[in-house]
């Protein structure tokens, strides 16, 4: 067990919005490379807050404090430049939001244009095709690459946003309830996609949907009132929860 070096490690991570209350309390957990880890829990339990700490999203809001350590490949990201962290840790949000002024093609490359990184024509074409293929969108959009990203359906838009994040070749991909705004068919598409993606990238996904966690993840976290209550193999956690609170949540008595 010790031989597998974690890609991401929370060490007593705390997040607070105000001085009095902590939204995430002393979370410690190690995430293995090329796995999908689901973070579950009732609304307001701090799961999104924990996720957003990983790419230093909280730095955008001066009132939010993050304490403890979060190690990415053994480097504490809390003392790194947000820009460097965010290039290595991609994020997909709840609501699909492709950049409305950009074409599908430019949306995929937006990470590069936003950072002022120039690519050659060949590199661009390769990146766009590769990323759209890895989100299974290439065949659907290859003839309309110049149309606006907002012209696509909700599910397609979300896959475009995943492609946008993958284009930066991140080590870790954070997904904040990525399917909650989508219909069941689009959801199934994205779940299927994630199974393939974990070969390239380590995925941390917040989900409200227990079925989804069971279907896609190998590890699961259960959070409650800001605490990490239980963390383990998804199968074990679902079939044999150790904590009463986890059991109550999984059986629908709480949530």
């Amino acid at each position, binding site marked *: 067990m010790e031989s597998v070096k974690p890609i991401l490690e929370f060490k007593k991570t705390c997040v607070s919005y105000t001085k009095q209350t902590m939204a995430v309390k002393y979370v410690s957990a190690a995430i293995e490379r090329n796995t999908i880890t689901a973070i579950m829990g009732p609304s307001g339990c701090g799961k999104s807050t924990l996720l957003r700490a990983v790419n230093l*999203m909280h730095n955008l809001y001066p009132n939010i404090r993050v304490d403890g350590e979060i190690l990415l490949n053994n480097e504490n990201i809390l003392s790194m430049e947000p820009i460097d962290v*965010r290039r290595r840790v991609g994020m997909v949000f709840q609501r699909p939001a492709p950049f409305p002024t950009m074409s599908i093609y430019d949306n995929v490359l937006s990470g590069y244009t936003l950072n002022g990184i120039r690519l050659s024509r060949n590199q661009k074409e390769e990146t766009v095709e590769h990323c759209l293929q890895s989100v299974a969108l290439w065949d659907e959009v290859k003839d309309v690459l110049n149309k606006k990203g907002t012209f696509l359906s909700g599910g397609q838009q979300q896959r475009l946003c995943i492609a946008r994040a993958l284009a*930066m070749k991140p080590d870790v991909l954070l997904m904040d309830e990525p399917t909650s705004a989508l219909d069941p068919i689009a959801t199934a598409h994205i779940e299927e996609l994630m199974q393939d993606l974990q070969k390239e990238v380590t995925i941390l996904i917040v989900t409200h949907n227990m079925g989804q966690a069971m279907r896609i993840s190998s590890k699961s976290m259960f959070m409650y009132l800001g605490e990490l209550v239980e963390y383990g193999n998804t199968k074990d956690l679902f079939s044999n929860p150790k904590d009463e609170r986890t059991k109550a949540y999984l059986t629908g008595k709480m949530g």
Partner: protein
Amino acid sequence: MNDKLYKILLFVATLTMPIVCGGVMYALVTDAYDAFEHFGFFKFLTSSDWNYTDGSEQYGALPFITGTLMTTLLALIFCIPFSLPVALFVGEYFNGTKIAAILSTVTDLLAGIPSIIYGLWGFYTLRPLIMAFDISPQGSGILTASLVLAIMIVPYAASLSAEFIKMVPNDLKEGAYSLGATHAEVIRKIVFPVAGSGIFSSYILAIGRALGETMTVTMLIGNTNNIPDSITSTGNSMASIIANQFGEADDLRLSSLIAIGLALFLITAIINMIGKIMIKRARIA
């Protein structure tokens, strides 16, 4: 019964405004008719003579159209470097903070200052400065009027632009940040493009204000009836020539002034309409 009466009252009150607007339009057209008939419509708009000596009367609107366009365009150019930072400060950098609220209130206060006050300030403060720096010998002129006009339209451009900057969805900004963009990059590549048409339309509306501004311009532009040959020379705008001469004018000269008024009315109405349509589109999108 009561309901019906209420409806009729409402209808009559509402109808008054379009009737007044139509009345103004009708009066302008009938009174301007003489000038247009005498000089010809296009000839009147493109002639640069303004001679009211009896017997050799000759009127053309070109110097004033030029004066209006020059002051408005310059005012717009001077206003952008002040209104855009204010809009960004209020709408993005300090959005929702107390300091932004104070700044936007103060900026809005500028819109409430009567134009005669701006005129006085321009005349007694800015004009001597322009003379002291040897920019123009007489102090007044297109440049002086444009500078004050620019200050007057800053609040209109800034507060509306700020509104459109605020409307850029947080989803998009966070999406850009999550890809490693800096604040400046988010503003340049996400906020401006997304709010662009809204910002553009707020400048169109600001232009609409500048076109018809009379008092300040009349006090500062120098009131000469020639086509201005540089930005420091004196001139007259469409509004300022009317304000200057309507009291002493009669017959053909009065009709010519009213014709200029009609042209100004139409230009302003069209600019405002374009601005409003664009704002509507920007809000929907």
